[in-house]
């Protein structure tokens, strides 16, 4: 990627992180749509021999040979039996029955995690710079489990099975399914097994935001990643006939529109269909849109497809207006016709102009790439949000990372829009999603693991979480673009990753397999459920009191139940919830003191003890936090933050309260 290394501060540590030989020992396994091995990001120049413990293979298939792999792309496998069993044989005229990526998504995610440095990367000149993965010297192993018709659990399990056997250090999965209990969710089951073997599993949180309870991949042994913006934009200005200007975004690169104003029409007024405003295929009347710029509403069909629909109907340009679902979030696309995406408020103003002017006109001008955009990051509207619908006591997502307008490697088999009509071919593409933020964290985790090879997956995640930031330099909370207001831990988790701080977190909240087993006991897992998830017979100790609040998680979710007395909620009833945590010293001897800040006075937060002294490495100290609250109306939420500091490190944890 370009810009994200700088945005994440990796340039500051360039001297020791990317050059370190140990990062070359790290292997990131990416379960996705495969890899385009000819991508410059898979160049293996300067890399040493393949790590000696590597057991993976470069599987041969259509358009994919042994020689497709090298010292960067060290493994490539494909899994299609589950897919073919359900949807029939793969149409090899449309996709390769091999590890080759015909889609682009897998090349984008794997090069984001661990692509080599490529000077002079850009998409049509946009986002130009040196592109590199987060762990630029780490190795990539690709497991193709996703095909044109989706990703099937039989194949995903097979991919994870092999990735574990092959010897990857990190598994990156930018995919998800419905919300189901851990013992029925193949991703959670596979991730548990990976975690047991010391492999960190990083997954995308999902793109179902900004709705609450919209998260995927919420198992506590998975690192769940939401998406934020960078400080980079691709402005495309819309000028109306009334002289008003609006700033949208676009990655259009073809012939610009003329300077003169062109007729403008609302798609809803150029269609006989009730959903004509959405510019769905076949809904626009060519005689009404020919030679005009068409305003389409965002939603339902792909943004780039709307542009094609306008173009095919004879339109010369498109303004794509956000609706309430996306608010002011601007996602740039490499449209096939001059187009600009504008926010909801600007879209509404343009629509009012359209309905009030007898001969509305407009033009669009493209301004390339702008950096230094503030505020940044902001939480992407599409990024899935908590609370956690499977285990409300575990706060998810864990962190956010860059996931909007991300440049990374692309397939040579599809154009940047992914549309069949797009015959352009590019080495890099700019796309958005929690699919893009997940591999950022996967690569950063590989980098941290390289520097701290003895750290468990939970310790690596803890380092990323407790050092994440949730405010700007001004002190203001990171914004949520869906609302334009301050985001909450249900949107950003512990905050935005800060990998440089994560290398030296001071203390970590560690977790071992037995801690997760205790967590499952707390969930009252049956013997069968245990075996399904953890492949073992385990009987929880009946004399032991298991509690989800004792899972040594680096964040706190505290769901209070409204007390019921005499058939109604009692205003005087008090709830008390106690959490226990253990901190492990991974820094120098130091004394840490706790501080708590809260936006509510309704919850009394007591930490015991208030000071922890660590005198040796790996020393562990336990503390308890007691939350006491009176009854509140159901649906109330509030947030707080707990920090341990020795004056040098800040070990931060978000706290989310809900009353149900």
């Amino acid at each position, binding site marked *: 990627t370009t810009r994200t290394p700088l945005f994440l501060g990796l340039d500051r540590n360039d001297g020791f992180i990317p050059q370190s030989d140990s990062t070359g020992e790290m292997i990131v396994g990416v379960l996705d749509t495969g890899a385009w091995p000819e991508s410059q990001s898979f160049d293996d120049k300067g890399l040493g021999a393949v790590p000696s413990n590597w057991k993976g293979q470069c599987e041969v298939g259509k358009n994919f040979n042994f020689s497709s792999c090298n010292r960067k792309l060290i493994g490539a496998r494909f899994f299609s039996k589950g897919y073919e*069993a359900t949807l029939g044989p793969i149409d090899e005229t449309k996709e390769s029955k091999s590890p080759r990526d015909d889609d682009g998504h897998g090349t984008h995610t794997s090069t984001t995690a661990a692509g080599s440095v490529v000077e002079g990367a850009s998409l049509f000149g946009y986002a130009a710079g040196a592109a590199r993965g987060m762990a630029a010297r780490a190795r990539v192993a690709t497991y193709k489990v996703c095909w044109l018709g989706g990703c099937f659990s039989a194949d995903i399990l097979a991919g994870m099975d092999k990735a574990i056997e092959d010897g990857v250090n990190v598994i990156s999965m930018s995919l998800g399914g419905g919300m189901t209990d851990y013992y029925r969710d193949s991703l959670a089951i596979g991730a548990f097994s990976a975690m047991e073997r010391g492999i960190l599993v990083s997954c995308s949180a999902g793109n179902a935001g900004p709705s609450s309870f919209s998260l995927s991949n919420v198992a506590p042994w998975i690192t769940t990643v939401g998406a934020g913006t960078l400080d980079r934009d691709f402005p495309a200005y819309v000028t109306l006939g009334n002289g008003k200007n609006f700033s949208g975004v676009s990655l259009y690169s073809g012939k610009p529109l003329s300077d003169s104003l062109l007729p403008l029409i609302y798609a809803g007024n150029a269609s006989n269909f009730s959903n004509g405003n959405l510019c769905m295929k076949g809904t626009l009347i060519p005689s009404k849109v020919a030679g005009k710029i068409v305003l389409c509403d965002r939603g339902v069909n792909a943004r780039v497809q709307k542009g094609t629909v306008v173009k095919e109907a004879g339109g010369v340009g498109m303004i794509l207006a956000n609706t309430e679902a996306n608010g002011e979030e601007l996602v740039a696309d490499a449209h096939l016709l001059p187009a600009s995406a504008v926010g909801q408020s600007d879209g509404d103003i343009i629509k009012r102009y359209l309905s009030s002017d007898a001969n509305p006109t407009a033009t669009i001008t493209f301004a390339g790439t702008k950096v230094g955009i503030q505020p940044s990051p902001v939480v992407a509207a599409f990024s899935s949000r908590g609370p956690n619908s499977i285990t409300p006591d575990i706060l998810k997502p864990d962190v956010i990372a860059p996931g909007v307008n991300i440049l990374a490697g692309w397939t040579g088999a599809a154009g940047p829009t992914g549309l069949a009509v797009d015959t352009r071919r590019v080495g890099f593409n700019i796309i958005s999603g929690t699919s893009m933020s997940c591999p950022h964290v996967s690569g950063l985790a590989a980098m941290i693991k390289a520097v701290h090879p003895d750290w468990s997956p939970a310790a690596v995640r803890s380092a990323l979480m407790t050092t994440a930031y949730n405010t700007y330099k001004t002190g203001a909370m990171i914004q949520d673009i869906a609302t334009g207001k301050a985001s909450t831990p249900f949107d950003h988790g512990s905050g935005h990753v800060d990998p440089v701080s994560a290398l030296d977190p001071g203390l970590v909240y560690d977790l071992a397999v037995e801690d997760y087993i205790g967590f499952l006991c707390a969930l009252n897992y049956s013997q069968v459920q245990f075996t399904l998830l953890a*492949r073992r017979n385990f009987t929880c100790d009946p004399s032991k009191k298991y509690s989800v609040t004792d899972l040594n998680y680096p964040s706190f979710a505290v769901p209070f139940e409204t007390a019921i007395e005499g058939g109604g909620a009692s205003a005087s009833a008090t709830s008390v919830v106690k959490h226990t945590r253990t901190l492990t010293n991974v820094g120098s001897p130091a004394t840490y003191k706790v501080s708590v800040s809260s936006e509510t006075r309704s919850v009394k937060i007591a930490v015991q003890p208030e000071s922890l002294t660590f005198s040796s490495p790996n020393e562990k100290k336990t503390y308890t936090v007691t939350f006491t609250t009176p009854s509140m109306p159901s649906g109330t939420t509030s947030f707080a933050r707990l920090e341990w500091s020795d004056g040098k490190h800040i070990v931060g944890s978000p706290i989310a309260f809900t009353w149900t």
Partner: protein
Amino acid sequence: EEQLKMEKTTYIVHMAKSQMPATFDEHAHWYASSLESVSDSAEMLYTYDNVIHGFSTRLTDQEAKSLEGLPGILAILPQVRYELH
């Protein structure tokens, strides 16, 4: 109705490895034997060694119900489709 009965679904079959009869040397043979006992035609798609103990296969409703009743079968879960994010 007959056609529906014959329609196959992809399942992930979870086995209790500890319950493998002593007559088998390898769990993969036990999986295959269990599958063969309920279906003449079902093929194993994958056997899993690390993430679960079990295998994936295509079964009719009836075959799935028969398999469910065999010793050592923990659960038979239908395959699920996931989406890229």
